[in-house]
């Protein structure tokens, strides 16, 4: 299949970008600091324990809650970096190549235009999946080895973080068949920001029991379901105790999105990808 030829080139091309290398270097730095951070947390916990024993006070805060929060912070960073990398890597992948003329020698070749779009999608997707799996692995490894803590549902959580990036990738690829690189960057980042803000408003709404605010969150997660999928991921990778202890918060949720929301998100990706193929099919280069 010719789409795989495009995918292979796209994958290799991503590593030609300084930005991707920048994210990779930062990620390694993050992984090291994160392990060190977990080490500090463990030390801190031991101090708290010693003090508590001295005071004869058995607080309700347990180590699992702290460790779980730490894992959540780590995974959120992974989720965020993967999202940023996705958008930056794919932002001009069609529009930029129309402008530069690179596509002029590819489109006349014996392959469908949809294969070009699909190939690019697969190329970026495989890069991001590898990235996310490696990063989640490093976070969980730190928790395990340094913090002696194993979060639940790591596989499901990872899949959901991948889904978050796929949502952003679909949006970015769809956008780049219509908008210029710059305009697409602005639009996608605005939507990404909107989704995050919407999720935050929903959490505050839950805290204040304000239906309007909750509805804002719901609408934003219909428009761009990236944030709600992250929140579902964060819900799953924490023990129930940690979820109820932490309560509604900027990075998580106490009310997990349903399975329907996950199905909706997958359909959202597929429809945007098909939409991108359709738009590109009829576009004059």
């Amino acid at each position: 299949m010719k789409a795989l030829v495009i995918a292979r080139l796209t994958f290799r091309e991503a590593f030609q970008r300084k930005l991707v290398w920048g994210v990779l270097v930062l990620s390694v730095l993050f992984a090291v600091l994160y392990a060190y951070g977990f080490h500090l947390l463990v030390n801190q916990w031991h101090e708290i324990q010693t003090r508590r024993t001295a005071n004869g006070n058995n607080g309700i805060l347990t180590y699992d809650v702290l460790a779980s929060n730490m894992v959540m912070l780590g995974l959120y960073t992974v989720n965020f970096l993967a999202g940023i990398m996705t958008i930056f890597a794919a932002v001009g992948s069609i529009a930029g190549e129309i402008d530069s003329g690179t596509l002029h020698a590819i489109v006349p070749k014996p392959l469908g235009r949809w294969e070009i779009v699909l190939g690019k999608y697969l190329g970026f997707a495989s890069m991001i999946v590898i990235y996310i799996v490696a990063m989640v692995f490093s976070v969980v490894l730190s928790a395990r080895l340094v913090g002696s803590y194993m979060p639940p549902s790591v596989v499901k959580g990872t899949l959901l973080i991948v889904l978050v990036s796929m949502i952003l990738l679909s949006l970015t690829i769809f956008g780049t068949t219509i908008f210029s690189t710059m305009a697409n960057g602005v639009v996608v980042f605005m939507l990404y920001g909107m989704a995050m803000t919407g999720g935050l408003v929903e959490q505050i709404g839950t805290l204040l029991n304000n239906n309007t605010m909750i509805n804002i969150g719901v609408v934003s997660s219909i428009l761009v379901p990236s944030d709600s999928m992250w929140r579902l991921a964060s819900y799953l990778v924490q023990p129930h105790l940690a979820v109820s202890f932490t309560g509604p918060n900027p990075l998580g949720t106490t009310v997990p999105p349903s399975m329907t929301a996950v199905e909706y998100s997958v359909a959202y990706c597929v429809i945007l990808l098909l939409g991108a193929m359709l738009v590109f099919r009829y576009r004059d280069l």
Partner: protein
Amino acid sequence: MLPVAAPAAETTTAAVETFGLRKVYGDRVVVQDLTLRVGAGEIFGFLGPNGAGKTTSVKMLMGLARPSAGSARLLGRPLGDRQARQQIGFLPEMFRFHDWLTGEQLLDFHGRLYGMSRAERRRRIPEVLQLVGLPHSGGQRVRTYSKGMQQRIGLAQALINNPRLVFLDEPTSALDPLGRRDVRAIIARLRDEGVTVFLNSHLLSEVESVSDRVAIITHGRVAAIGPMAELLRRELTVELRLGAAEPDDLAELGKLVTVEHVDGARQPTVVARVPDDETIARAVDLLVRRGVPVYGVTPEHRTLEEFFVDVVGTEGTESR
């Protein structure tokens, strides 16, 4: 053979056929009505002033832009047909490649897009690199190539699949005179191999030296089309150096050819337009029979440039 096979056989002899191809962007008509036919194995020169719609025409044929109206067939198949595209090579005017690849990797990528097997690619890549004059640069990144080398690798990319039909859009724009000569040699070689070449170029001398047939388009339509020799022969100028010609002799000569001007009275030099070579022979015969000494006969074929200027006039200089 079944009788229905006859028309099919005829269409296969045409490499490119367009029927009223039209492209409108908004309310701007870029290509009005492009109707032409390029026979298999021909080197076809596609000419026209800037803004005449040449590149847009090529884009429509290459599936980069959708025709607003009309249709076309490449290698006897409708536009967009994959089987046809398999056998077509294209060097775009605005060529830019993945310049982080080496020349070989770039050709390998394009070979894969044609579905060539690993063995085929391995055999063909050094071959085309040699053909375009880059036998030792295949291992370097395209980024480090000069402009001329990039155009050569672009040409190699267009030939990687051993195409039956090649579209070259301004293939020598970045080349020096030697590079241009190389490209002419490559085109001549393609002709020998029976490949059809659709050459879009504004370099008239280049088109003139390689093309079998040309079309000149202005305002998005074909203004003139035909075999090069025929177009240029249509009007031929001849210069006759004569000795002691009487006015009567010149008057008789004037019945045969169109005398443009006569220099000198005793031994006149006559410049005349003639329809073909045959008429020159008859004119010389006439003069000799009348006893006029003919010291010299110099036929002057028109250059493509002169013909082009006649067809396009000065309108082409106004950019639209």
